[in-house]
């Protein structure tokens, strides 16, 4: 067996040399041509035998010796090379036609021919029509009356040689001093006939898993980012956050309507601001500053409002649990935010995990988007209503802050009326 491998390896190594020798001998008279044909036939025989004994050598063997690619049956793959100016379309078509075909390759080139392996056209030869060369170089010393396309191969147009049309190389370059009547386009690299194009057919299962992990990582990333922003907001703007949060909780409908109107009027307001500044002449100098400030304010209102919604959700949940007698270690704004953001992220997490399911995935994504938009709109509206937490008019704070004692805030004591509430009554969601 090792001996056989060595023979095959030597055969494969010698094949390109054989091709070169054959090319060098071409065009020197009929006697030489006959010799070249004999050498070609001999190496064709060797390559066929080696291909039979060792299938892996097939691709390299075919590269060394040009073999015509048989025309496809009617309805089979066909590629028209009469116009190759749209390189992307030609490459895509070739990728589709040549993928996974192996030795059973069939391809029709209308008004032309297709070859596999190193192709050469001697100076006394002429090729009418377009030419496709796959997995091999094209050596043109004669006259090619049409367009030339190579896949994974270089083109050499020798002095005295002619390519009357365009040349396109996919995975190759163009050399030589011959005449080229048309345009030369060359991509030194290509995805045609590479393992990538073959592997894409079998990839979906792996890519779906990768997609799911990617989405989960994305949700976790957004969760962590929002948590970090929220913690910063609690640390530096807690009173404002609490007022916006209370506005959402106490005036949700009003906040939502305000947020909706705010979204609708966002662009007109911006336009009026810009026009007003331009018309005021002096204000035109403030235009760049105003644009930046306006954009920042909108982002802060939207993001802060969304975080306030998360805060309100977390606070409601914690207070309900406390009202039911659960002992919460530290019921503070950090905990409220974390719980709220986790609740909001859970919707997107569900989409990340089950998004690949054909219909349900889209429904989950739609639901997650809708809920996020609803809450975001309410948060944005609450931020507008409360002037970013400055006004408490809609926050349900009817009693002065100094009067808000623990008795008021925790008006649902662990022992008392709620413990023996009447059947059918709701547990109050807030302490007031």
């Amino acid at each position: 067996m090792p001996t056989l491998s060595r023979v095959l390896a030597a055969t494969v190594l010698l094949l390109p040399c054989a091709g070169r020798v054959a090319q060098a001998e071409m065009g020197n008279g009929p006697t030489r041509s006959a010799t070249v044909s004999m050498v070609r036939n001999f190496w064709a025989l060797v390559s066929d035998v080696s291909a039979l004994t060792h299938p892996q050598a097939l691709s390299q063997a075919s590269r060394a010796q040009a073999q015509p690619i048989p025309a496809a049956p009617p309805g089979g793959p066909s590629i028209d090379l009469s116009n190759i100016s749209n390189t992307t379309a030609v490459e895509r078509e070739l990728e589709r036609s040549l993928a996974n075909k192996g030795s059973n390759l069939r391809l029709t080139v209308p008004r032309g021919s297709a070859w596999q392996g190193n192709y050469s056209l001697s100076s006394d030869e002429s090729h009418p029509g377009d030419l496709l060369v796959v997995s091999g170089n094209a050596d043109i010393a004669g006259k090619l009356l049409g367009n030339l396309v190579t896949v994974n191969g270089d083109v050499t147009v020798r002095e005295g040689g002619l390519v009357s049309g365009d040349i396109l190389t996919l995975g190759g370059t163009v050399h030589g001093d011959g005449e080229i009547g048309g345009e030369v386009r060359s991509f030194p690299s290509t995805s045609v006939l590479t393992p990538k194009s073959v592997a894409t057919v079998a990839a979906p299962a792996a890519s779906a898993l990768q997609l799911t992990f990617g989405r989960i990582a994305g949700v976790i990333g957004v969760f962590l980012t929002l948590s970090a922003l929220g913690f910063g907001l609690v640390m530096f703007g807690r009173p404002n956050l609490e007022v916006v949060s209370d506005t959402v909780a106490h005036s949700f409908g009003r906040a939502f309507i305000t947020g909706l109107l705010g979204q609708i009027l966002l662009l007109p307001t911006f336009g009026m601001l810009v026009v007003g500044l331009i018309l005021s002449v002096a204000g035109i100098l403030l235009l760049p500053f105003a644009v930046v400030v306006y954009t920042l304010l909108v982002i802060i209102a939207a993001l802060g409002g969304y975080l306030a919604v998360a805060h309100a959700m977390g606070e409601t949940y914690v207070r309900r649990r406390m009202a039911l007698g659960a002992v919460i270690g530290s019921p503070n704004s950090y905990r409220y935010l974390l719980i709220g953001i986790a609740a909001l992220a859970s919707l997107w997490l569900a989409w990340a995990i089950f998004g690949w399911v054909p219909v349900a995935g889209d429904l989950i994504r739609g639901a997650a988007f809708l809920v996020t938009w609803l809450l975001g709109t309410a948060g944005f509206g609450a931020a507008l209503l409360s002037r970013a937490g400055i006004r408490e008019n809609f926050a349900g704070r009817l009693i002065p802050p100094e009067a808000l004692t623990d008795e008021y805030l925790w008006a649902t004591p662990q022992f008392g009326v709620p413990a023996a509430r009447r059947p059918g009554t709701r547990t109050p969601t807030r302490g007031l």
Partner: protein
Amino acid sequence: MRGALFALALLPWAGMASAQSMRPFSTFRQQHGETRLRANLQYAAGVLRLSAGPAAELYRMDVSYDQDRFVPRSEYDAARGEVLLGVETAGRGGLRVVSQNQLRQIAHVSFSPDIDLALDVGLGAVDAELELGGLRLTDLNLETGASRAVIRFSQPNGARCRSAQFSAGAAELSVIGLGNSRCDRIDFQGGVGKVALDFGGSWTASSEVEVRMAMGELTLRLPRQVGVRISLDKFLSAFEPAGLVRRGDSFESPGYDRASRHLDIAVTTAVGQVRVEWEK
């Protein structure tokens, strides 16, 4: 477990890395006795270099482009003697603004110095250097978006140029050696940005220049060998007429009337500054 978390954290980055793939592409056409060419060069993003090439090639473009977002264009219409070259967005749109990778897209374009060339250039977000000296320009039309562009006429234009039109959005644009351009008429229209027009070079004829700029800084670098007249229509702009003498509504260089060749510049600007410098 820690390894799995680490791999999970790396996944988005892996996706991002795989999306960035540059692909080289070359195109050219041999010259077969053509005498003129109208070239339309559209370049959406990246770095662009343009210059005169070998005489045997009508045109050539070597580009390395972001194949996820852009496609190269190279279409020659032999009947009309026109070529469309460049790189345009592949439909997904948008620019890779997250890193410097966007600027890795680079193109070198050249044209034959033996043909009469009418050049239309459209630039998007581009860092461009166009060396037009040595070509035979008959018309020039340049439109830039958010670009930084330097256009040079280092050598005299091989042909007489009917007009050169520059249109810049939010751009930093320098045109150097306009005297070598041999253009009868030069129009510049700018939005916002910083523009320098250098009228140096060898003047062989008179020329008319019209500059309209909305907001920004305009620098006019003037030659001493021709008579220069600047007529200014400004709104909230500062103008320093260094070395110019006021005559009526315009400013003239000393000896304008006696000069054999004239450079008449009409400037319209809204907000900004117009500076005048003299060639040393």
